């Protein structure tokens, strides 16, 4: 176990270096941060002086090594737009994104499990057919379109739900949460449904097909033959064995959810990391872009490591082959 974790940490460090290197290499094609900092009329000489001061005129490798050196001390640079350390900016925006992903995950779980299981048990009912049909469309509709349609229906036409932002938040030990106010929860509904919409069809189909496969296995047939209660067969014997592959996929898909927060947060003016990142790209705030990539990279490595560790605990076969 110890060797496994050490190996993972070494891998993580390499991943970090690669990500930061790529981030650094692309930053020059994103644009010039100095342009956004000064007005359009500022002379070339003034801009050049500012660029010198920021160290943007140094050779690429000098800049990169300076960044790595500072990063070792936990300093990921200062955002040109926010004028604050990038770490500080990202950590401030993180709660919004994490809450959004949390709410989305709950919605996904609450909807996909019952629907998936139902349509596996009754594959020919009209409900299952409708769900399968709709989910095909669901996969094809891009998330920002879903979001705008939801805003127009529930925000503009019906006026039931707020159209943008996070609403009232409460600060608990430095964590801005929207979970504790009614306003905050109302603001959470549309963004989390939009974000969930991309994952729902996938999970319903995944659970359905896994479950149908399990229902065909010998031990389920045996359970039927034994005359067990049908709910017991479905929910205990069949469903439990459907879960394992589904959990694995969920672990990986959380990463994809992160990627889709970029669009969802921008449409809803949701003040999270995704919104911040897109804005940073637009403003060519390269320091913030690189810092975001590095931090998200760390998160991915941590999540993947956790999934691997948990998987090892759950499934002994993985542990045995993994230790060799």
């Amino acid at each position, binding site marked *: 176990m110890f060797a496994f974790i050490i190996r993972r940490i070494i891998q993580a460090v390499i991943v970090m270096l690669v990500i930061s290197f790529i981030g650094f290499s692309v930053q020059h094609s994103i644009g010039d941060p100095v342009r956004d*900092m000064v007005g359009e009329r*500022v002379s070339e000489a*003034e801009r050049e002086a500012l660029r010198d001061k*920021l160290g943007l005129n140094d050779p690429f490798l000098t800049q990169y090594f300076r960044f790595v050196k500072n990063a070792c001390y936990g300093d990921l640079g200062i955002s040109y*737009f926010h004028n604050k350390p990038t770490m500080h900016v990202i950590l401030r925006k993180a709660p919004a994104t994490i809450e959004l992903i949390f709410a989305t995950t709950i919605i996904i779980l609450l909807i996909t499990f019952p629907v998936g299981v139902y349509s596996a048990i009754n594959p020919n009912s009209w409900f299952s057919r409708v769900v399968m049909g709709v989910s095909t469309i669901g996969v094809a509709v891009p998330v920002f379109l879903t979001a705008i349609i939801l805003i127009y229906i529930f925000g503009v036409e019906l006026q039931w739900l707020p159209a*943008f932002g996070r609403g009232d938040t409460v600060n608990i030990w430095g964590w801005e949460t929207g979970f504790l106010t009614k306003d905050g929860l109302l603001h959470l509904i549309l963004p989390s449904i939009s974000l969930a919409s991309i994952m729902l069809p996938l999970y319903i189909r995944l659970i359905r097909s896994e479950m149908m496969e399990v229902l065909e296995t010998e031990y389920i047939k045996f359970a039927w033959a034994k005359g067990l209660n049908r709910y017991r067969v479905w929910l205990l014997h069949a469903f439990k064995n459907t879960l394992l592959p589904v959990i694995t996929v969920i672990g990986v898909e959380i990463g994809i959810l992160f990627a889709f927060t970029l669009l969802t947060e921008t449409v809803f003016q949701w003040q999270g990391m995704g919104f911040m990142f897109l804005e940073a790209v637009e403003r060519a705030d390269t320091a913030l872009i690189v810092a975001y990539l590095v931090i998200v990279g760390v998160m991915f490595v941590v999540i993947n490591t956790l999934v691997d560790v948990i998987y090892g605990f759950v499934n002994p076969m993985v542990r045995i082959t993994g230790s060799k």
Partner: protein
Amino acid sequence: MKKIFILGIAALMLFSFGMTANAKTLKLALDADPKTMDIQEQLSGGMLQFSHWVFDPLVRWAQDMSFEPRLATKWERIDDLTMRFHLRKGVKFHSGNPFTAKDIVFTMNRFRKSADFKGLFEPFGETKIVDDYTVDITTKKPYALLLNMATYIFPLDSKFYTGTDDQGKPKDAVLKVGYSFAKMTLPSGTGAFKCTFREHGVKMVMERNADYWDKKSPGNVSKIILTPIKEEATRVAALLAGDVDFITPVPPQDFQRIQKDKKVDLMTYTGGRIITVQMNQKRLEPLRNKKVRQAIVYAVNNFGISKKIMKGTATPAGQMSPKGYYGYKETLAPRYNLRKAKKLMKEAGYADGFTATMIAPNNRYVNDEKIAEAFCAMLSKIKINVSLKTMPKAQYWDEFDRQPADFQMIGWHSDTEDSGNFYEFLSMTPNKETGYGQYNSGNYSNKAVDVLTLACQTETNLVTRTQMLQEIEQMIYDDAGYVPFHWQNHSYGVKKGVKAGPIINTLNFPYLGDLVIE
């Protein structure tokens, strides 16, 4: 007894009605919030809007483009180089410090430390205190635009911004990057509103200044909550959903939607930003030919672009100066005439056309990418084949300076609200040393234009100066020095009852201090 009771209730109700009528909150959504709290750090439309809410200038532009006294009550020219300003008495900054002539000197000196403002204030000399409420502002040479520039002078609280802060850094520092006191601290101005809360990029709260000097202002907004909403569709949705009361800008594709809705109003106002394309004569041989350039201008259907792409939110232009500027000449109308364009191409010997390249931004001006596409389509009718590349503004300006394409789009708004500024930056022969023609990527050059533009800077006689400016405009028009499209209109979406009409202007500085909400 009963009567008195009823009367009392009535009075109370009236009183409380009066109270609620006076306490109005305005929920404002812009595409971006002020970038910094230091109004001298960045020169941009957004920062100037903010300056008008929290600070006051010496004078400001009225809707009819006349000067309206603000912190200066009177002014007079003493000689060619000096203008004397009499300052308003009894004005207090939000910090409680009184406003005096010392603050003007402090403000003028601090402009010189700001990279963004340095250039604009280059013509200015020393600022002399005559007494506590009188200052003489001088220029190095006779300068026609001194009063125009006074609209940029928002006096800062010299006491508040002097000394060292708790980090031991000077409070008056103007810094682009990293911490500075003025940038991070809620400002102390003289304006109608006082900033009480700010989370950059998320929210800003401004509350009415109870001691505001302008007692005549009809404004009844007691609190402004500013939220930046970058996404256009979301901004419009927020207004239609009733989440906000005032949005700007409104994307043209949503104009109809807002007009149709009974709960909201759409307001537009002619703006001063001209959208153009420059034709690079250094890069492409045919563009050196005046007839070819004229043919291109004749091939462009300005009215079609304003109507179809801008949905009527732009005024078709044949020249750079918008109406109301001294350089504006009534006769210089848009020249769309396809037959004439083809004829000119033939005369120039390019009846078979040629190929060219073009770059344009895709998120800088309203519908910039679509305009560029339309331009290319229009040129194809006179057999000029243009390959277009568009890019986000973060990358565009560096490219623009490198001049990698034959046609380059640029929009321009005159900082001084004077025609001369257009010619200095866009039409004069580019010169690295003097900085003139800095944004003339067409490399258009006409000696007479250069000489006259410089002469205008020092000409203080208004009649002569107007003649000179119009002459320049005519010369560039005849030379077809660039392709004009239109002046972009400013657009505002407001909830019914928000009386935005009287407070908007060509400059896109909605004077929210004077805003009335019913």
